[in-house]
């Protein structure tokens, strides 16, 4: 005779795993922010744009600079809709003036 098994209990809804992203600042952004790097805690699935919104909330004056900043994720230029992953290095690149 077949036994009827109870389904296992559903897991509780997972709190989104937090990821840590290291943000690097250079040149005028160091002057603005007062430091060269900062670690951000972001929800899994966050994008570069989310990281920027987070910084805009934390750093007075950053929001107005953001449109003139480019982003490099692990040393490659990316657009702001790219997702970040735990351990990523996100560099904020003001307009460059080498040469």
């Amino acid at each position, binding site marked *: 005779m077949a036994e009827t098994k109870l389904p296992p209990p559903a897991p509780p809804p997972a709190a989104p795993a937090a990821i840590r992203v290291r943000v690097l600042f250079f*040149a005028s952004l160091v002057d603005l922010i007062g430091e060269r790097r900062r670690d951000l805690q972001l929800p899994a699935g966050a994008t570069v744009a989310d990281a920027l919104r987070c910084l805009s909330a934390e750093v007075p004056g950053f929001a107005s600079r953001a449109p003139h900043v*480019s982003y*490099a994720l692990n040393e490659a230029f990316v*657009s702001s809709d790219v997702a970040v992953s735990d351990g990523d290095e996100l560099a904020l*690149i003001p307009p*460059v*003036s*080498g*040469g």
Partner: protein
Amino acid sequence: MIVELTSDPIDVPRLIDHVNRPSNGGICTFLGVVRDNAEGRSVVKLGYEAYESMAVAQMREIVHEATERWGLDAVALSHRTGELQIGEASVAIAVGAPHRAEAFEACRYIIDTLKTRVPIWKKEFFQDGAVWVEPVSSQPSPR
């Protein structure tokens, strides 16, 4: 290929020697040197800051693009960091090629492209202050 960031003065003859191969008939070099003025103001000195690991990676990529496009085997690219006095070279490029057209074109390509996307920043020091130079026209975009 030589591709480097350096906090020491750039040794230009070393770069030229590096690209002086027996099969090359022409060597074009470009030096960026510190001018004593900027937009009409007297410049006292300059400072260069780099996102070093990425800057070197971008410089390598640009050199690779040039060697592929012009069929070159001899390029040297050195960029200075730190504080520079008037007349010191901030960047030096040497390109050797069998014929001069390729040497000139590749050298020009490398400096033009470096200025658009290598993460290095220049600070101009005046008598009464200092500013980071951030031309919006040089804002890099993803490629």
